């Protein structure tokens, strides 16, 4: 009997032990392991990984808090005034324009992380047996993210493909950092897929050349931001690379400046060296480009459908507006033959007839599609007339002005067929005129300056934009906004295109006072390395002064 019971006990124990034979290997279900990625997807997988690296445009280049904010609002071309209770956000927008940020500025962390995501995703492509072309594309995207990291933070972390992510990677800074980007771009030039005319959505030799031009042009500034120097060799490189693009005849100036940014810019833009493609009404892979106009438009600027279509935020200042050769007090009856088209204010088909909006810099009274003057949301309402005067501390408390303070900037004519949904405007990252302006600048900066050659290039661009040619032009003047300078021309052509802060530093004028920014500190030539990033990687060094 006892024996029998022992047998039963044993049986039970055996059952129990057998039941416990799970290896506990976690099944991921929706995502793949590294092995599955290369095994199951093969070469296609590498293409998917590369596409993901391209999709990383979304964060840094489209999110209003990232590069648009750090390169635009920190400069003299853009700011976000606090309007009553709106856009206070704990002062984070004002601090960027006033240069009073600190290492906890959320925008720094956001941008640092999103650029490094791009850095990572591009690097990762290299670990999955890419073709030469794929590898070149990935290395271009990586170089591009490193360029902005270097520009903003003075250093960048770098990993080789397959590195253990738990280890802190090396950090490159100063000349070594620029030289690495340059060597990468030179190395991939032969393997990049050829550029096509008008609009490029893939990395291509012209995009690589243009990024190289930026590297050579800014090299002296990247090495010493307080006192940039420009070597003749670097300037010659800029000119040579620029000429290669200019003589290719793949690009020309788009007749209507705003066609570069419109919903049909995929066919109308003639200047698109590098862009991100969006398709109207298709939400998949759309980077939500509508933030380009939402961030600035007033709530009431598309009343027929949606009274809250705008966020009423980003603005520019009268002084910038005036560099176009007008004063902000002018009425909006612009004479086409005399004025720079880049200031906007003209009828734009598909936009003005739908909402009354005239793309460009929006100042004064705004109208709807029927020509009726718009009002703001206040009671009593005020004419929706954008007022260039912003209160000195960027905080508008005058109830009558709260919603209308600040000149607005609509560079991308809204896609009204999908105003709230997936807009079809391609986000244009590298534009041909920047190539021309960089060549002009290098001509003026080389050991034997060619000011006349530079003026010819600039005047050709101005003519294409409907602006009167300049009689003479200097690199920079006593104020940033003096109109007859190359700096001002870059502002007029490339405003709100992620370059202004870099320009101001290179031109040595970033620490100057300008509207709503007074005294400054040399530490602000670099953004602080985000506190969190610093804690994670001891190889990163906090920038001096923070």
């Amino acid at each position, binding site marked *: 009997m006892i024996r029998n019971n022992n047998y039963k006990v044993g049986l039970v124990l055996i059952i129990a032990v057998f039941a416990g034979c799970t290896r506990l290997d976690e099944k991921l279900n929706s995502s793949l392991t590294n092995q599955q*990625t290369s095994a199951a997807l093969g070469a296609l997988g590498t293409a998917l990984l590369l596409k993901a690296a391209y999709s990383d445009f979304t964060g840094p280049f489209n999110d209003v808090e990232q590069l648009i904010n750090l390169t635009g609002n920190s400069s003299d071309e853009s700011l976000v005034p606090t309007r009553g209770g709106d856009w206070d956000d704990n002062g984070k927008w004002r601090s960027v324009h006033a240069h009073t940020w600190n290492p906890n500025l959320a925008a720094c962390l956001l941008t640092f992380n999103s650029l490094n995501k791009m850095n990572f995703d591009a690097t990762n492509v290299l670990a999955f047996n890419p073709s030469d072309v794929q590898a070149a594309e990935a290395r271009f995207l990586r170089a591009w993210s490193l360029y902005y990291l270097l520009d903003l933070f003075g250093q960048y972390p770098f990993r080789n493909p397959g590195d253990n992510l738990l280890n802190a990677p090396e950090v490159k800074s100063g000349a070594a950092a620029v030289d690495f980007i340059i060597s990468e771009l030179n190395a991939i030039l032969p393997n990049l897929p050829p550029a096509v005319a008008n609009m490029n959505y893939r990395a291509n030799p012209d995009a690589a050349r243009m990024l190289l031009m930026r590297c050579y042009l800014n090299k002296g500034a990247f090495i010493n931001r307080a006192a940039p120097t420009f070597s003749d060799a670097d300037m010659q490189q800029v000119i040579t690379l620029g000429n290669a693009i200019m003589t290719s005849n793949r690009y020309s100036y788009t007749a209507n400046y705003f066609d570069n940014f419109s919903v049909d810019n995929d066919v109308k833009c003639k200047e698109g060296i590098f862009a991100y493609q969006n398709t109207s009404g298709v939400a998949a892979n759309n980077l939500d480009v509508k933030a380009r106009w939402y961030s600035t438009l007033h709530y009431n600027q598309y009343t027929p459908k949606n009274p809250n279509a705008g966020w009423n935020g980003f603005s520019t200042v009268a002084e910038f507006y005036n560099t176009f050769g007008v004063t902000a007090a002018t009425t909006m009856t612009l004479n086409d033959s005399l004025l720079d088209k880049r200031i906007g204010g003209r009828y734009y088909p598909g936009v003005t007839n739908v909402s009354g909006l005239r793309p460009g810099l929006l100042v004064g009274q705004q109208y709807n599609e029927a020509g009726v003057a718009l009002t703001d949301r206040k009671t009593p309402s005020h004419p929706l007339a954008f007022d260039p005067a912003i209160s000195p501390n960027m905080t508008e408390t005058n109830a009558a002005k709260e919603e209308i303070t600040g000149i607005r900037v609509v560079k991308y004519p809204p896609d009204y067929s999908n105003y709230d949904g997936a807009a079809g405007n391609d986000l244009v990252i590298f534009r041909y005129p920047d190539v021309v302006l960089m060549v002009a600048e290098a001509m003026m900066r080389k050991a034997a300056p060619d000011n006349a050659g530079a003026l010819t290039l600039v005047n050709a661009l101005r003519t294409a934009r409907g602006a009167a040619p300049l009689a003479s032009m200097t690199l920079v003047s006593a104020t940033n906004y003096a109109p007859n300078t190359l700096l001002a021309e870059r502002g007029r052509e490339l405003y709100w295109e992620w370059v202004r802060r870099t320009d101001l530093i290179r031109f040595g004028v970033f620490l100057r006072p300008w509207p709503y920014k007074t005294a400054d500190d040399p530490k602000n030539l670099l953004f602080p390395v985000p506190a969190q990033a610093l804690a994670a990687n001891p190889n990163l060094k906090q920038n001096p002064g923070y």
Partner: protein
Amino acid sequence: MLMLAKKLLKRVPLTLSFILLSLSLLAQDRTVTGKITDSKSGNPIEGASVIPKGTSKGTSTNASGDFSISVPGNVNTLVVTSVGFGRQEVSIGSDNTANVLLDAIGQDLNAVVVVGYGTARKKDLTGAVATLQAKDFNQGVVTSPDQLLQNKVAGLEITNNSGQPGVATTIKIRGNNSIRAVNNPLYVIDGVPLDGRSARPSVNLGANGLGFGTTPDANPLTYINPYDIAQIDVLKDASSAAIYGSRGANGVIVITTKKGTSGPMKLDFNASFGFNAGYMKRYETLDAGEFKQAISKYGLNTALIGKQDVDAMKEITQHNLGQLYNLAFSGGNEVGRFRASFLGSRTQGFIKESSLDKYIGTFGGQYKFLDKKLTIDFNLIAGHITENIPNVSNTAGSQGNLVSAALSWNPTVGFKDNNGLFVFPTNGSGNPLALLEGINDVAKVNSVLGNISASYKILDNLEYKFLYAINNSTGERNTNLYGWLQGYAGLSGIGYGIKSFAELNSQTFTHTLNYNAKLSPRLSLNALAGFEYWKSNFGNSSFAAGGFNTNLTQQTRIDIPYTNLLQNGNTQFPPSTFQDPETELQSYFGRAIFNYNDKYLLTGTIRADGSSRFGKNNRYGYFPSAAFKWNISNEDFMKGGSVFSNLGFRASWGITGNQEFPSGASQEQFGFSAYNTASQQNVANPDLKWEQTKSFNLGLDFGFSQGRIYGSLDYYDKNTTDILFQSTAIQPAPASIYFINIPGHLSNKGVEFQIGANLVNKANFSWDVNFNISHNKNKLTDFFGLGSKNPIVILTGQINGQGVSGTLAQIITNNQPVNEFYLKPFNGFDASGIQQIGADPEFAGDPNPHTLYGIGTTLGVKKFTLTINTGGAGGFMIYNNTATNITNISSIVGGRNIDKAAFNSSEKPASSVGASQRFLEKGNYFKLRNATLTYKIGDAGKYVKGLSVFITGNNLFVITRFSGFDPEVNIDKSSNNYPSRSIEYIPYPTPRTVAFGFNLSL
């Protein structure tokens, strides 16, 4: 000499009784037998004393409650007493049998406590376990089982996140045990550990260009019928919870459902009808008169003043009658018994168009075979929940929350124009009544929890048990936001529909062997060995579209929701489908309890948990515990003459774990996102493991005067380390964070005191009171990054609303309690009435209550019983985000309503908006949670037994200085999955509810 005298004296009564006995023998003794049972539970009472009245010779009952006593012929009354029960005199006349029911008073030390894979007697407990039986539960309108326990258990903090029926609650046992969002205890129902998630799909209406934010989470326990619960045990210390290993660190709540009992068929029925009687506490905004005054006070445009006088906060609420019907029947005999129950209820939300409907059926039974050696137990719960979810989201910005719309509605303006169409003001307030009609969000969740077990008695003292359980929930949710609502970006003139699904499936296999042995006449052993395998799987999917052709204007509304025609949407958002990595847990565990003479008890447990979530290098975790109890009152020197009827000292130590990090976190993962892309999404950490809590508990159990006064005092010290932390990924990286364990310490130390008393226990008058209070101190120490001496700083606690986006109000950092408020100081108003906010944030107060208390009383007078349960919390702060952003003074410029505090201050409308300590308020409160008056009619007619009628009220009043709706609030304002605490933001208001109903049995 003295000793001798004492001994002699002691013998005197014996001598006397001998004489009396001799006398009684002369008058023809008879033998009376009988059984003493608990009148409530029907359990036999062991050790009850039975004495023929007027004699001194008694006996006590055996383990089955049986006694046999010789009774003198001239005695016809027995006196029955037992610790924890009322004294009873039973007239036996000339009968030879006497079955006596004793009413429990105070604490029943023989009550069975469920301790995890087994049971123990209350008096044998070595750990800190609180037990509540059905009679102790909170009463009134209860929508989920956790509410039954509120304020009932010292150290157990249950916060209703808001007043919405069916919404998740925040439950903390002995403080914050983790800095991670998942801090809730493990629920175990009839031996089945639950996953803790709900299959109600969660919807983020802040995505795709909408500004509506996320809606609160659903309570995962709504499908458990509160009337089916027999008992809830709260395992508080590590020695009790360590048997649950890597899931025990937050404590364990063990729910035992009612079972059939042997005896005649029994049917219980109860019905109740309830309504919302109004706000428990109103949020004070301006009425029409005050609004007019404000316009003139601030010199604003008189065009802002309309011709009406409306109360939007009243307009959005309803008093509709909710209903509840519950039927249970059971029966059985020695070898088989069953119980079945059905619940149908509709809880009307206080806010219009919101409700929670429940249909729950259960069927369970126990059958014995093979000469009762084999026992089959089964229990099946099937529940269907339909929830009409109101548009009261956690994170809406300036718009998109119904309560926000109502609070900021201009009280002088009507909701509709002369044509009967909704008015849409341009000041951003939104029209609350239009939102009620224009947003429709219905979730349905079906849940099944079934378990079956077979126990086989291999030997008399050795039992094997196998349990299999499956818990499956599926949810579907249809969310429609109609395009005729005006003033909403991404919605107006467009429309938006989203259809979402979720499924949760978990399974448990448990094998246990239980061995009982008497090692010596005085030393007994109870040993348990077991193996458990548990797996769980969660998946969700959603399909959304915008840009519809219907319901775009108020005049042309049709009664077909967008979710019935998603394909019609002009913008088809990419579908989102996701299946969580499966979590598997494989565990071996054992427990040994030594009992020496009921005086010294020693418990040791160990559990080895292997989890698929853990990194490869840390697949198994080991969780030991040990506990000791000294039943002082069982010592000889305490016998007789002592004031204590019960006195015990407990000490325990143990280690428990927390594995609540996302599954898949230890692995390298490549995921697919938008079309044609795939990317690495996670940094692999093969060292990732559980968070570990070491805890130490000292306890004292006591009882006075026959157990009429009883209670316990506990001190605990818990130390959590290997803290699960979302470390900043070392860039360049695929994600901004990855999970690591950091060697910091999270400490919770506290004291708990619980006392109950049966003050009066007379036939027509009884009075019980109970009181509990606990104090907890929570602090993070050594909270540094790996290899660093810089304190980690985690900011969380999102402040939402226009003008404060990106503001975080709380900090998780070294030497502070978790979620310490971290806010800029408020420096009053300047001469022009502009609020002055300091430049730098500072530590500003603890959002975690330091003190929790509960007071309950039951008063019985003749056939009336009045039960009152109250409770409160103290020593914490609440951030009033509603006041910061919704009813702030600058809103009045646009004609939005503002709060009275702003109106009565010297602030002017030009004042800017900003988060600061100005809106940090003391949270201390005392709440009358429930009062119930019951009248026992008794038997009615031939069949109806135990008929009683009752009226009950919940949340009848609150005493607090907090200016928001309810100081018991925890809107989810987490940031990056780090939880927030005690922030109010336009919550679903808490109503006073009143219900009446009846109970009867057949």
